[in-house]
């Protein structure tokens, strides 16, 4: 098991290198630092001197891969590739283009993101399983068919409308919760209710529909027929036989998402004014702060790969027949 995990971690390195090369290509080769400087400075102030100045200030005034003017190891290290991309492996994210330390920003903004994402995630799974179980109880009836239709309809509504509609109804019309904002010290739950509610509601369509399919797949298995022949009640079959077995695919499907919860949700956080990593990314995209985008791409990839490893481990834990080798 341990050997397997170590091997997987080693396997992650080439992938991260690939991610790094790809972002490096995107940010520095496709668009040269000169182009970036020109667009950051705006049209008015683009003089060659201003561009050089901006590049020096942000550390882009080096050669891309090989620095011929330096000696020894510095030929490799005193380059944009080394200072901007390779250092990410040491979790040294450097400074954003507005001059703030990215590592500090990330570590403080992680927690508000988690405060929204974790309850949404847990509650979402629970609600989806409950709804799907209820629908499966009525399988084969017209209620089931209508439920599937409703799921598809819920899926067809843009996420933006859930947020806008939720803010309008719950916060503006009924005045139950504040429209947006976040306060870590004073009653934070008040600010969390609506974002969590919106993300759970918007996930029901696709989530419950998928879980229903999984439950139905299990309901067609031989052991269910055996249990029924044995005289087990429908409820007992549903909860004792179908549910535990269907939980395996559900578990492995959602475990991969757990590490990424740290990244938060772009839309939820920006609409509800939550100072998490989601709104951090959105601000970075809108202000074209490529240093932050680059760091977040790297963090996101690490979390995703970590999620893949967790998925494999959860397989062995949930299903003893699976052996990792």
């Amino acid at each position, binding site marked *: 098991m341990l050997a397997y995990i170590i091997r997987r971690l080693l396997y992650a390195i080439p992938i991260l290198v*690939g991610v790094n090369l790809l972002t490096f290509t995107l940010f520095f080769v496709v668009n040269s630092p000169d182009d970036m400087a020109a667009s950051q400075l705006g049209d008015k102030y683009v003089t060659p001197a201003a561009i050089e100045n901006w590049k020096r200030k942000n550390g882009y005034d080096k050669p891309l891969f090989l620095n011929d003017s330096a000696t020894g190891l510095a030929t490799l290290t005193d380059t944009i590739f080394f200072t901007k991309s390779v250092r990410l492996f040491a979790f040294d994210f450097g400074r954003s283009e507005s001059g703030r330390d990215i590592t500090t920003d990330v570590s403080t903004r992680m927690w508000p993101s988690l405060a929204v994402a974790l309850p949404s995630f847990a509650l979402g799974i629970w609600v989806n399983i409950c709804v799907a179980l209820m629908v499966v109880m009525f399988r084969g009836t017209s209620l089931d068919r209508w439920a599937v*239709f409703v799921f598809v309809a819920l899926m067809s509504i843009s996420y933006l409308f859930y947020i*806008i509609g939720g803010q309008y109804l719950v916060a*503006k019309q009924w005045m139950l919760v504040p429209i947006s904002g976040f306060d870590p010290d004073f009653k934070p739950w008040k600010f969390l209710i609506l974002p969590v509610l919106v993300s759970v509601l918007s996930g029901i369509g696709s989530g419950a529909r998928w879980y229903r399919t999984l439950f139905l*797949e299990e309901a067609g298995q031989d052991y269910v027929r055996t249990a029924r022949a044995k005289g087990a009640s429908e409820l007992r079959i549903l909860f004792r036989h179908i549910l535990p077995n269907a939980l395996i695919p559900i578990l492995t499907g959602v475990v991969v998402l757990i590490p990424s919860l740290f*990244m938060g949700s772009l839309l939820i956080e920006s609409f509800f004014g939550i100072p998490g990593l989601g709104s951090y990314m959105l601000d970075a995209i809108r202000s074209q702060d*490529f240093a932050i*985008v680059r760091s977040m791409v790297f963090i996101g990839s690490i979390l*995703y790969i970590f999620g893949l490893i967790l998925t494999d481990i959860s397989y062995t834990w949930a299903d003893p027949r699976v052996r990792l080798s």
Partner: protein
Amino acid sequence: MWELDAKPVLLWSDALVFMLVIVLCTFFYRLRNDPQTRERWSQVFSSRLGMVTFTIIMVYVGIALLDSLHFRRALASPAGVETTEVFYDNKVTSVLDLMLDGMGDRYERTYSAPLALKSFEKSDMKDEHGNLVRDYEWLEHAGRHLASPADKWPDLLRLTGIALAWGLAAAALVVGLQWVLLRGSAYPWYASWLVQAVVICFMVWLVSVSHYYHVLGTDQGGTDVAYQSLKGIRTGVLLGTLSTLVMLPIAVTLGVMAGYFKGWVDDVVQYLYTTLSSIPGILLIAASVLLFQVYIDLNPDYFAVGMEKADARFIALCFILGLTSWSSLCRLIRAETLKISQLGYVQAAHAFGVSHRRILGRHILPNVVHIILITFVLDFSSLVLAEAVLSYIGVGIDPSMGSWGNMINDARTELSLEPAVWWTLAGAFFFMFMLVLAANLFSDLVRDAFDPRSGSGRSGA
């Protein structure tokens, strides 16, 4: 009204979408004799739901295609100047604009409610004595023909009656023709005809009432919301199809090669898609779009009219969405190819010394077509939804190009006005929801027919 003097404009996206139509037609034409495919499609279309959703999708596609026939109107030469040279309008018009009969040209100053006669907000005006008063302004293009404001509802009723009569007549013509041709068919065509009749009546009503009122009001800039929603159709449909078109060749080639040749090819392909899928999609898309934007900003001379610039950004977005989303389809095709290449007939072909190219073309590709098809239909709706999100983030469609995402983005704070401005959001919601719902329901049916093991829908009961 119908000027013939015009110069056709072929935008890149127009060219691509008509190419796609030709490709799809040839694809289905070549498949028409395959008994298995025929049986599966007939399963899709023998349900009423399949007919209804397909008709709705076709209506959207039809509107999108009409909106893709672009031209620039010739300008009337200025009075007193004799010239043989013809100047063309800088604005690009489409056939749809012509059919909507100037719906997009009737601007107001700012917000107005659906079917309203007066503006939504008060503004400073002069009364007949020249005193400054603050009141709701009369709209420029709503109810100008009425003798008094009280006549509005009777007039609307009258207009609706006339429009319905014309609509029903047109629908009778369209449906009647199909009835003559298809009455012996075993498929539930009547469901499709019903939808067609409703759509025709609705469109006739919308266009004729729009002459005198703003059916869905106007937005902050004073543009007709119904017009904007209709213009959003082209963007949504094209984005949903062109992105998939970009993604398909990459995913299919790499997936089939990985599954067939195995070995180091497989390793490389697996490495590529794992790397790509480990990057948070939205960040990758945002970064690519931003970088392309930098490129456009620094090279403004490449584009003759503003529309071409918007179009370049649109195509770039399609390519970016396609290039970043091939990993899941590639994975599916690789798995399926692995499975197929173990089968007896492929092994036999190997034993007979059939070339790789022939095996791939004759035995492998035809057997993964259903996966491609399911993905094409499934991805369509998610891409339409993604457009709205990307436009909100600011990396979507160019703001000068109408799209539902831009509408939502512009209107996202309007519900907090007092009283709330709901019509922009409602317009975008309705047109987007109908398309995505139809596409989702249709894709369920297609998946059930082509992949019975998927177990969704009724098959699990």
